[in-house]
């Protein structure tokens, strides 16, 4: 029995959860920018969401196998773009964007997430069934490490770190054995330690940000400020929250960038523990639904694709929310579906579109 893609097979439940989060995001951006010069940014977010939604639908009808087939070209293109971006002038202390005609700022590092998900899926799906050799492993590491280092050079530590879960998931699902896994973990720890000590790869402010969450009071005016203010904002919310647009930390501009990286802190302050737990629950349901889609995927690459998306999402949620509650360092990783910003919205919806295609494709053929 041959069937074609049908919107009946589209994951409407997943979309429902995603839309709830998007609406929450728009309201919180509205509240968090109310007394800043960014007032009205929630309208842009609505536009981004509409655009993202359209891209999701478009993506959902593009067969992911096509993407798998041409991904090495796309990968090559984006590596060039990442090199190219380093040649651009610095904007706000970093080189992240390429200006395109029409005033669009193209940020290759966001797209690379997607590219890595696809290329890892293709790579590891082909290796399933036999034990991974060191050669296989190093190839995979190289594929991820090249863009990581290029992005780190911009410098953009947060986005760079977001690439690592894709590799981890690939290795895990690709069937790495325990011994190699353990050796790898050890190597990573030693390597990270070496990088830390060498002081070459990481800039001092990046180091400071990474360590300040452990003891933010050591430098309350500098690197610890954001952590302290974020924790105060979250704690200030209490169980029931101070009410929409009533959070003093959010409205008084004490909480840094409350509409992007720290939007969850703003939400926590205004909607309390109950609101925060409900939002986390919805994220949980989204992720569970994605894993379910991975399980039911028609083929291995489909599973790998969806799990790649799951890995990136849970990584971002864990790091962002962890940062907001003071368990994680400040890395500049946005909260997917909540933080303001076109790149983040586009990535999330494109990734979801891909998942939709995987789900819809299982009935095809």
């Amino acid at each position, binding site marked *: 029995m041959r069937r*074609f893609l049908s919107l009946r097979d589209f994951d409407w439940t997943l979309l429902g959860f995603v839309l709830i989060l998007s609406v929450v995001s728009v309201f919180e951006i509205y509240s968090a920018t109310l007394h800043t010069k960014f007032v009205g940014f929630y309208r842009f977010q609505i536009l981004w969401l509409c655009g993202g939604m359209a891209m999701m639908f478009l993506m959902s009808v593009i067969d992911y196998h096509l993407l798998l087939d041409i991904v090495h070209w796309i990968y090559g293109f984006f590596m060039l773009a990442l090199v190219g971006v380093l040649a651009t002038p610095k904007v706000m202390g970093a080189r992240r964007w390429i200006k395109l005609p029409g005033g669009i700022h193209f940020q290759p590092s966001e797209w690379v997430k997607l590219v890595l998900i696809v290329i890892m899926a293709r790579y590891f799906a082909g290796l399933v069934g036999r034990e991974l050799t060191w050669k296989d492993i190093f190839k995979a590491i190289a594929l991820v490490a090249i863009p990581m280092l290029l992005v780190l050079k911009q410098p953009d530590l947060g986005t760079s770190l977001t690439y690592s879960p894709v590799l981890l998931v690939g290795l895990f699902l690709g069937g790495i054995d325990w011994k190699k896994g353990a050796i790898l973990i050890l190597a990573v720890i030693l390597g990270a330690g070496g990088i830390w000590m060498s002081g070459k790869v990481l800039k001092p402010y990046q180091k400071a940000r990474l360590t300040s969450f452990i003891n933010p009071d050591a430098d309350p005016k500098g690197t610890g400020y954001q952590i302290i203010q974020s924790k105060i904002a*979250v704690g200030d919310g209490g169980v029931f929250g101070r009410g929409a647009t009533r959070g003093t930390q959010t409205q008084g501009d*004490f909480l840094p960038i409350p509409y992007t990286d720290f939007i969850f802190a703003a939400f926590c302050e205004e909607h309390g523990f109950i609101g925060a737990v409900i939002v986390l629950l919805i994220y949980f349901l989204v992720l569970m639904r994605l894993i379910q889609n991975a399980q039911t995927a028609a*083929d291995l690459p489909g599973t790998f694709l969806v799990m790649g998306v799951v890995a990136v999402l849970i990584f971002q949620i864990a790091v962002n929310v962890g940062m907001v509650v003071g368990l994680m360092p400040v890395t500049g990783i946005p909260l997917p579906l909540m933080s303001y910003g076109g790149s983040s919205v586009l990535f999330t919806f494109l990734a979801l579109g891909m998942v939709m295609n995987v789900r819809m494709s299982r009935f095809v053929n």
Partner: protein
Amino acid sequence: MRIILKGIRRRRPERSAAVNREEKVPPAKLMVFQYVIAAVMLVLISGLWRLQVVGAQNYREMAEANRIRKVPILAPRGKILDREGRLIVDNYPSVSCFLVRDQGHDIAADLPLIARGLHMTVDQIQEILKRYRTAPKFQPVPLKQDITPDEQGFIEAHLDELPELETIDEERRLYPNDGFAAHLIGYVGEVSEEMLDDPQYAAYEPGDVVGRSGVEESYDAMLRGVDGSRDVIVDSHGREVGVLGTEPAKPGKDLRLTIDLDIQRAAENALGDRNGAVVALDPHTGEILALVSRPVFDPNKFSVKIGREDWNRLVTDPNHPLLDKAIQAQLAPGSTFKIIMSVAGLQEGIAENLRVDCQGGATFYGHFFACDRRHGMVDIHNAIPLSCDTYYYTLAQKLGIETIAKYAHELGIGEKTGVDLPGEVSGTMPSEEWKLRNFHEKWYAGETISVGIGQGAVAATPIQLARALGGIASGGVLKRPHVVFPGELPAYYRQAVQDSYPGSGDVTVPIDASNWEIITEGMASTTEAGGTAFAAHLDGIDFAGKTGTAQVVSHSAGMDKISSSVAQRPNAWFVGMAPRRNPDIVVAVLWQHGGWGNVSAPIAASVIEAYVDKQRRLHHNLVADTSKPVKDVMTKPVEIGAVWSKPPASEAPRGSPVPALAAIDAGHFRLKPEGE
């Protein structure tokens, strides 16, 4: 659409090795993900629980501390008024600059700019910040007080660059010009670090303004109000976005002094630029009517922060301008002490019949003790007006030091009077025991002879002499001198003042009526023809008193009386009163290095004249029958109150203030309005 997709799909090469449709990821591996995600969620929720449920109260407070800033509203100090309610010390509006530290703003980098704008040095600012390092962060640090409009403009122009600067309006002390009554009133200043360590100042915080001297200090608790505060909502840039609540400041209470501005002014003018002190009080009650000390300082310079140069000048001046000499100069009282000697001699029954032939001195214990002239036969009646040293040498020898010390102590010599002003000293009344305790030496009988004329180790303050001689003239009733009406103080406060300024207080020393008359008559004769203070004689006023000429170098007493050097010139004392018995006013005058005591008498006379003039302008004090001889009235054995005669011809029309006094009524005035 379907066709396009079909096309795409068809082009998909089947060769792809990656696509193995039969292979599946083991469900167990995906389940691991589910558990990992669940675990991550639980960790995050526990993080939220820790902050939002367990720590909610704590973080709520921190959020409030973030956004609420307490802006102090400084309470104005109470005004200081004279006994008739005329203004002596007022306040004027002023602006102070504060620095707010509790912001995410690097203050250290701004210091050079701030220093330039406020005309300070970076070191000065850092010094101030150091002083406040232990104070809570939300408490603004007072940077500069009483800033100029120019500096105010600087702060306003840099609102955005220097959000940590804040201005606060406050009321600042305005004292009379030229140091008028400066020692009496004292001055205010920022509470010092040493004071903050003192439990007495427990209620004070750094930066508080506190009375540092005079009435400002002794009645600080009364004069200072309670600062209020405004709870302002600010954003992270320190900008005010709202006001949460205001607690108004409670202004300090106005304080009415016993000082009479007219008398004070007369005393200031009378003493002029002379180095010394004048204290005038009402012996019936102990109310101080005037208190002057010279040289003066300008308390207005203290009301902000006194400059180092000004301060150095004040503390290194050999004439000690900061000393309130009325209560802090302890000097040999000279012949004024003879009144105390007379009380002792008469009460002991020795003086009444003592007759001494003065041949310009006498020899005691092998030493010659000089008198200033040959008085011939002297008894107690003329010994006082003539101030014959020989008589009192003899009397001292007969009384002995212990008896003299007993009477002197009873009359308050060597004891604090308990005046409600800070820093009073007790002076010295020597005795055998005193010498043994302080010098571990035996008392030599020869020393008693010098004590008899108020020399030797005897040291008294002007206020002690005013109280003692005024009390003796009042029949032995001595009162605690004070500058604030105790009846106008709350009971607990009245007690606290008495406890804080202990002293002899109110004492009655028994003096027989006949002795009392002898002494007061003697003092009255002092200003009559033949008396030592005849130059200060006041027609129509029953003006009595006693001069004193105290050698500054006591060891050379009687040898080097006339010295060309000013520093060697004796201190000129005069204690005068009117009327002679039960006086209404007693004035003690000290003129350091003034020379003979008679030069001080006119100073006291002008104060008394001013007092009498003033009384005469009041209806109820006028004598109904001016034809009645003054002498008759005054020879009555007991006199109550003053009875004045003969208003001077030049008296100003009743009811309208004298021009010179009009300036005083206005509050702030020059010391010599007519002279400048």
